C-alpha cells in the first residue's frame, strides 16, 4: 500500500513542457495526483477529460479503472463506491450533469468520502449553450445539495493551473475526506497552452486506521478504512454515530455530525484557501478587481492597463472559491476605494464579496461570451467614477 499522508512521488508524465488542452491537463493532473478510478458520462465541454483518462488509464494499466456509466447519477455513485474500495476517484461533467450528481454529492459529504468532481461550466440554465463558457455554477456547487455543509471548490485560470489545481483538489479531498470541486469554464477547458510538468509531485493519501477506530468520529478527520479488510463497515447516508449506526431520531447525533462535518473545513481555512494578489501591496488602492477562472486573465490585463495610466489598481484572484476567502477580501477591500467583481454570470460571487465589502460592484456577462480586457478596463473607470 502506498504511503499515507503527505508524500512526494515521481510525476507520471515525464518532466518537461507539454502543449495541452485544459481538459487534457485536468486528466493529467488527476493521474499525477494518483487518480485510479474514473466513472463518467459524456457532456460538452468536459468530454475530453473522460476521453483522455480512458486512453491514459489503458496505457498506464496498474489497476486503474475507467468506466462510462449510464448517466451522471451513476457516475458519481460509482466513484463513491470505488473510493470506499480504496480508489482515488474522479468524475467530470458540466452544469446539467452536475445537477444530476447533487444527491450523491450530499451522500459523499455525510459519509466523508473523498471524491473529485470537475465542472467545466457552460452557459445555462438547463441545456443552455453547450459549447459556450460561463461561470454560472458557483452557487450550484455551494448550495446544490440539501442540508448544512461546507464545500471546497477551486478555480484555475490557465491550462497549467488546470493541472496543478486538479492535484490540489485530490489532495484536499484525501486530507479532509470530502468531495472537492474543480470549477473551470469551457474557455479554459478548451484552451491550449504550455504546461511545465515537474519531476516530482506532492500528493496526499488518505489516512488509514491503525486498528479498529471509529470511521465517523472522534478525530476531526477520522482515518478512513477500506472495504474488504474485515472492518465490518457501516457506511450510510442517514445520520449516524461514530461507528456508522443509523441515528435517525437523535437530535444529538445530528447536531454532532453536521457540526463536525462543517468544522473540519472551517477549522482549516489556511490549508484550503489560496488566492493570488497582484499589485495589492500599497496602503490604498484606487480599485481592487476580484476575479477568478478565465475572467481573471482579462482582469489581469485590464489591471495592467490601468496601472500604465497611473491608476493604483490591484487584482485579487481567487483560486479557492469555496470556502469563500472572505478574510482576505475584507482586508483588501478596506484599503480599496472601489471594488469590481467581473464574472460570467449575473452576480453570484459579487454577493459574496458584498457581504464583506459593501462598496463592491459587478460587471456581468451571461451571453456565452468571455469577458475581454477592454470591457473590464471600461467597467473599472465607471466604478471609480461612481
Amino acid at each position, binding site marked *: 500500500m502506498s504511503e499515507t499522508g503527505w508524500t512526494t512521488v515521481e510525476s507520471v508524465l515525464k518532466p518537461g513542457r507539454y502543449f495541452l488542452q485544459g481538459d487534457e491537463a485536468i486528466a493529467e493532473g488527476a493521474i499525477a495526483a494518483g487518480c485510479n478510478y474514473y466513472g463518467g458520462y459524456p457532456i460538452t465541454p468536459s468530454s475530453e477529460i473522460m476521453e483522455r483518462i480512458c486512453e491514459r488509464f489503458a496505457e498506464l494499466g496498474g489497476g486503474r479503472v475507467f468506466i462510462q456509466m*449510464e448517466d451522471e447519477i*451513476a457516475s458519481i*455513485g460509482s466513484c463513491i*463506491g*470505488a*473510493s470506499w474500495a480504496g480508489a482515488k476517484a474522479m468524475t467530470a461533467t458540466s452544469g446539467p450533469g452536475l445537477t444530476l450528481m447533487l444527491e450523491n454529492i450530499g451522500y459523499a459529504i455525510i459519509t466523508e468520502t473523498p471524491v473529485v468532481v470537475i465542472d467545466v461550466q457552460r452557459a445555462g440554465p438547463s441545456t443552455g449553450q453547450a459549447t459556450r463558457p460561463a461561470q454560472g455554477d458557483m452557487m450550484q456547487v455551494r448550495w446544490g445539495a440539501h442540508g448544512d455543509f461546507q464545500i471546497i471548490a477551486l478555480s484555475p485560470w490557465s491550462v497549467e493551473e488546470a493541472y496543478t489545481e486538479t492535484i490540489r483538489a485530490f489532495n484536499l479531498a484525501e486530507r479532509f475526506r470530502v468531495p472537492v470541486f474543480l470549477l473551470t469554464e469551457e474557455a479554459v477547458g478548451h484552451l491550449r497552452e504550455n504546461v511545465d510538468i515537474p519531476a516530482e509531485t506532492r500528493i496526499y493519501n488518505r489516512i488509514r486506521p491503525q486498528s479498529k477506530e471509529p470511521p465517523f468520529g472522534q478525530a476531526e478527520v477520522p482515518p478512513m478504512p477500506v*472495504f474488504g479488510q474485515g472492518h465490518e463497515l457501516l*457506511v*450510510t447516508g442517514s445520520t449516524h454515530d461514530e461507528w456508522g449506526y*443509523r441515528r435517525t431520531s437523535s437530535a444529538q447525533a445530528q447536531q454532532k455530525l453536521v457540526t463536525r462535518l462543517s468544522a473540519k473545513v472551517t477549522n482549516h481555512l489556511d490549508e484550503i484557501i489560496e488566492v493570488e494578489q497582484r499589485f495589492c501591496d500599497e496602503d490604498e488602492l484606487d480599485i481592487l478587481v476580484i476575479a477568478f477562472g478565465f475572467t481573471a486573465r482579462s482582469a489581469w490585463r485590464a489591471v495592467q492597463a490601468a496601472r500604465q495610466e497611473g491608476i493604483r489598481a490591484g487584482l485579487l484572484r481567487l483560486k479557492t472559491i469555496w470556502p469563500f476567502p472572505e478574510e482576505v477580501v475584507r482586508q483588501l477591500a478596506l484599503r480599496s476605494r472601489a471594488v469590481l467583481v467581473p464574472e460570467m454570470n449575473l452576480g453570484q460571487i459579487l454577493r459574496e464579496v458584498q457581504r464583506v465589502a459593501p462598496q463592491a460592484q459587478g460587471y456581468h456577462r451571461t451571453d456565452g461570451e468571455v469577458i475581454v480586457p477592454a470591457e473590464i478596463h471600461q467597467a473599472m473607470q465607471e466604478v471609480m467614477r461612481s
Partner: protein
Amino acid sequence: MKTPGSTESILSCIRAEAFPTPFCPGCGHGILLGAILRAIAELGWSMDEMLFVSGIGCAAWIPSPHFAADTLHVTHGRAIAFATGAKLFNPALKVVVIGGDGDLASIGGNHLIHAARRNLDLTAICANNRIYGMTGGQVTPTTPLGIRTATTPQGNTEPPFDLCRLVAGAGATYVARYSVYHIRPLIRSLKKALTHKGFAFVEVLSPCPTQYGRRNKIPQPGEMLRLMKEECVSLDRAKEMSQEELEGKILIGEFVS
C-alpha cells in the same frame, strides 16, 4: 467449530447488537435476511470478503446494519451504481446488492438494466413486496393491476413490470424468482446467484401485510403467505398449463441459468 450452514456459522454473520430488526410483524424481509445468510453460510464464505450495497427502503435495511460485513447504504435507487464502482476497483470483493422493487426497479431501473447489460459480476437481490412500504404504501412498478395502494385507492390501473423478464432481456446471465415461502429453492437459488460469474438477479416475493395486505383485505401475515404460495407456479408446471389457468399467476424458478 463453525460447520458451514450451522446455526453458529449463521449467527457469526450477524451483528447481534443491531437486533431487533425494524421490520413490521409479518414482513417477509426477515425470512429473506435469514435465507441470504444461510446461503452464504452454506457456501462457507467469509463475511470479510463481502460487500453489501443497498439503497433506500425497507429492503435496504436487510443488510444494513444487520450483516456483520462491509455495508454501503446509499441513496435511493443508486445501490447498483455504487456497487459497480466498488466491484470494478476491487474485483476480489464479493458484492451483493439488496433492494426493494421501488428502489431497484422504479427510481433505480436505469441502473438495473445497465448492470444486466454489462453483465458485471454482481448479485442483485430484489425483495419484491410490490409496494412502497417505508413511505406508507404507495403503488410501485410491480404492483399488480387492481391492487389498492395509498396512491391507487380505486385499484392500480398500470400494468406491472415482470422484473425477471426485464432483467433477462437486458442481458443478465442468471435470473430467478422465488417467494419467501419457497425457502429451500430460494436458498439454493441464492447460492447459485452468489457463485455465478456475471450479473445474477434474484427476485424474491415478500409479503407486506402492513401496507399491502391491510389495504387489500388480507391483513393476516399467514393468509398473505398462503395466497403468495398459491399465486406462484413453477416454470416446469406452467408448461402444462393453459393460458387461462396461468391468468394472474406468477412464474417462479430459474429464467436464465
